[in-house]
């Protein structure tokens, strides 16, 4: 294994692993409780690989397939700008292999770690990191599926908060290293706008609107 790939895989272990595991265990539990098969849950974790979209599909009513797909796309629409932001860092022959793994955990870690690595090593580091957390996502989906019914509601509620704290700390870690504070602040300030949308509007629209408004404002302020 290339040293950069091994470094990425090693760095994926720890807090990243715990955050991923907690979320995907909760998803595995929810998959079984919703009456879907383990294969369905594993395919969702492997190919959707974005919890917001996975939860939209999981909650879809029979006969509402088109709406469920549209909702999942809205919920995970951030993958497009995330992939665009990642592209210059992983450019090269390995870049196409990075495509399926553009998701919030590997992306957030990559944006904070890749600029400090030599350019030829970046895609390898990303693949090492992303494959590790993706594999953990699949294993813990299966574990959650197996554990459904045996976890208390308190533990499940706690599992759902692990990712929130993890990303709050990831943002803080980025800011402490001189990261994109304007964009983070813009997103945080614009977030309450999502709560003002008319009742019945899918939450994904609110998140998308907050990201576009906060991110664009941060971008424009940076350009001045």
């Amino acid at each position, binding site marked *: 294994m290339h040293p950069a790939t091994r470094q990425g895989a090693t760095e994926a272990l720890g807090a990243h692993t715990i955050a991923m595991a907690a979320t995907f265990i909760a998803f595995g539990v929810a998959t079984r409780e919703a009456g*879907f098969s383990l294969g369905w849950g594993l395919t969702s974790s492997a190919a959707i690989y974005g919890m917001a979209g996975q939860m939209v599909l999981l909650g879809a009513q029979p006969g509402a397939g088109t709406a469920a797909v549209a909702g999942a796309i809205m919920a995970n629409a951030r993958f497009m700008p995330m992939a665009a932001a990642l592209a210059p860092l992983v450019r090269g022959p390995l870049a196409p292999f990075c495509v399926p793994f553009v998701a919030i955990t590997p992306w957030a870690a990559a944006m904070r770690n890749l600029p400090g690595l030599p350019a030829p090593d970046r895609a390898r580091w990303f693949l090492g990191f992303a494959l590790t957390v993706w594999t953990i996502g699949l294993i813990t989906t299966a574990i959650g599926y197996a554990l459904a019914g045996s976890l208390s509601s308190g533990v499940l509620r706690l599992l759902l908060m692990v990712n929130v704290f993890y990303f709050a*700390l990831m943002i803080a870690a980025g800011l402490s290293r001189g990261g994109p504070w304007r964009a983070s602040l813009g997103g945080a300030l614009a977030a309450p706008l999502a709560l003002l949308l008319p009742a019945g509007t899918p939450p994904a629209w609110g998140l998308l609107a907050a990201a576009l408004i906060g991110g664009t404002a941060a971008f424009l302020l940076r350009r001045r």
Partner: protein
Amino acid sequence: MDHGWASLLTAALAMLLLRATGLALAWRLPPSHPAIAWAAAVSEAALAAWVVLALVSPGSWPVMVRLIGVGAGLAAFLLSGRLLLPGMAAGLSALWAADTFLRWTEVFAP
């Protein structure tokens, strides 16, 4: 649940297209290009907005309990020399403790 499989496979294809389109659009652009900077800003803003909404939207934990948890997590993160694991452990412990305390006070409230 046949409807579930059709939706899942269609959505999976759409996710791949979203990711591939983002990568393809930025493929020939230099890292300093304004479009890349804008995409990065929107993505970072999405992450921050998601965290804020998860903390303040109605949910299974009271908002105050969630804010105490994230505050304790950030404090531990800074005090431990910016280590993620102590921050997460402290945040989750504080969340659990604050929720337990809140329930306890409700039980014993006059």
